């Protein structure tokens, strides 16, 4: 019989994505710019770096969240596949909304 869905491997994928999400969440783009505001009085490059570090921080945070959400959906799929006799007919939805 051809393997169509391997739930154990789905759980491994979930773990991997969760781990990547957690690692990305530790990236601190604004940490090193704290001193820039006062490092060069009258200059614009310091504040610009601070401003862009905050935007980069937004981007990193959103990326982490998106990957985490994907991991959650993978886990939800695994749960559904586990309870389904025929993977072909699995209803991959949660609260009426499709997971994918």
């Amino acid at each position, binding site marked *: 019989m051809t393997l*169509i*869905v*391997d739930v154990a*491997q*789905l759980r491994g*994928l979930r773990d*991997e*994505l969760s781990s*990547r999400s957690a*690692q*990305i*969440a*530790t*990236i*601190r*783009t*604004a*940490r*090193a*710019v*704290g*001193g*820039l*505001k006062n*490092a*060069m*009085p*009258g*200059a*614009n*490059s*310091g*504040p*610009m*770096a*601070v*401003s*862009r*570090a*905050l*935007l*980069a*921080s*937004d*981007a*990193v*945070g*959103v*990326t982490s969240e*998106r*990957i985490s959400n*994907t991991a959650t*959906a*993978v886990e939800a*799929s695994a749960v559904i596949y586990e309870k389904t006799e025929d*993977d*072909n007919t699995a209803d*991959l939805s949660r609260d009426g909304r499709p*997971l*994918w």
Partner: protein
Amino acid sequence: MTVTVSQAKVWRPEELATAGAQWQANAESLELELSSARRAGDSSQHYWEFSAGDAMRSQVTSIATDAYSAVDSLTLGATALNSGAQIIRSWLDAFLGRANAAEGQLFSIADDGVVSPPPPNPLGGATPADLLMQMAALKRQANLLTVMIQADLRNLTNADSTTTDAISRAFEGIVGKFGIDQQRVDNTASLANSDGTSDGTAFRNGNVPPEMFNRVGAILTTTALTPEQLAAIERGEPVSDLPQVNYDYLRNFYNAAGKDGLIELSQTLREQELAGDADAGRRLDALANGILTVSNENIGTGTETGGFDKLPPDLQDLITHGGGSAPELSTSEFIDRNEYMKDLAFLLGESNPGYQPGTELGVELDKAASRIVEADTGIGAQSIVGQKLLEVGTRNETSTWELVTSPDRDRTLIPLLEYGWGDDGKALGGMFDWIPGEAISAGPEDISAQRAGETARGLADLLSSTNSDSLLSSIDSGNTNAVSRLFGIAGAGGESLGDVNPLLTQSIAGAMAPYVNNMAGMSESSLPTSGFGQMGPVESTRVFALLDTDPAAGTILNGEALRQASAYQNQIALDPESDLSPRRMEGVGRLRSLVEGGINMEVAGRELSAADAEQSRVNMRTAAFGMGQAGIAGACSFLPPPFGPALSTGVYMTGSAIVTDFVGPGGKLRRQISTTRRPHWPTRPPRLRRHSLPHPTRHAVGLLPDARDHA
């Protein structure tokens, strides 16, 4: 604008390079993680076919593609910072060399780069003509230096400008993604270019121009915590990734503004909001959120954390001492402080529910609410102020735990419990609404469950205390019997806790419900709770009786006790020969005795006619039985109001329909509940004695002889 001499002299362009190195490392880390995520997604095609697998892989690819733009931005930004640091350093070295040499020859340099010659040297027999020639030569040299130094300053300015443009261009790729719009770009730029101290000082001094209100308001919204950070706070986890620039601005702004500046800003924003400005409403929320952020010991930047002591000193003083009457205060000072407290309460009340005060601020807000309502000699005029303080203060569960387990417990809680709240005690009930959700311990390391148990126990001890060592309230100050005070609240026409504050009483009942076994004297080592310990029958009966003063609260607690009793009976029925059966039977007896004893004590305190008293008892037992049945059916358990009663309504009705199996014709509890498998009693069934106490404050000793023997 060209950089000045004094500014250039203190420039440290190495900081740009440091940030550049950090961004480069950030970019590499992000790229590494994204590659791993993509590989993991791609490899799933070997074990996850179907369109769903394809959709997942497409989703991961899409996320990574977006995020690679952030990698590119960080890489380009790092290059811009590094090259900028080098160019600026080279121009800075040229400038400093020239300026230092000139100053070494006693030339003076103005901030705009204009160089003045030193006075001529009259020594060595110089004639006046020599001196004139010297002066002319020095003047020429100074003019030349002026040209060169001003050129240095322009070069520095240009290098800074080039670097600034390069940084800006580097991040153009992420604008429009990740929820970053132009407004966000502008607001972060405004934050980066602003100084919290000078902004705060302007608000403290007053007469702030409208554009400054807008700028500062926008900055405050920019410092909002992210959804992930708020979720971490909700889980009780520390947040250590607040950007330093955000934290610095908030702390410096609040401290410089002080309570006057903050109140003025909040009032202006509120007026703007009332006039229909939605942005003002968001900014007002952000102002309040920021206060809670700075106060929170669990929120920090990785190098420092918030705390009550990080708030402006005058605000700390107001929260710690304001609101109450004090002999040293004149009437005008008292009124003045009350006005401040009112303004502060309304400001904090604007904070979003996901934001929590720090532990110390939470405790102090609860205490302030207590002082305010204790001193409220009007007709509940301070209720709304106290409610708003409590709504915020009670968000922090650790604050509640600290308060309820501290020596200040009775002195703080009694005025709060006795006050006739305009919201029937809903806000104060928030102090205990978290307990049911935390009560069941996941193991010995479950600190939340331990604290929930300790908090519930502290509250139960207070509710059953008849002789406090200390003053409980300045109202009816001679009465140190908490039980009698709460059964007949002074100034409330003798009404009880449940009459005066029904929603609060229901919250307390919800908090006590997980501990009914503990209150029945059972050892906590055999229970899923922790921190509460065992409670004696006399004290437990007082708690049951007091909570019976509100019908819904009594139903919650009695229902849970009867549900537990019924569960024991079912276990006995299923396995009557078990070694545990005697202990389970004991539990049934104790739990039912608590219910009965509490009802009797409460009814006795109401001075009803015999017939009315009996009817009242029947009603209470019936309601409790219905709730117990609902709990058995799993429709509700440990849920605080309004969820418990609301969810259980359907099952409650079912339970009421078969209540005659449980409550006999005389309104007395039957000795056995009708179940599909009638329990077999291996030993004598528990005795259910009905005692009535002429006054609820009398000791209930003898009420539960069985339970007392085993406690």
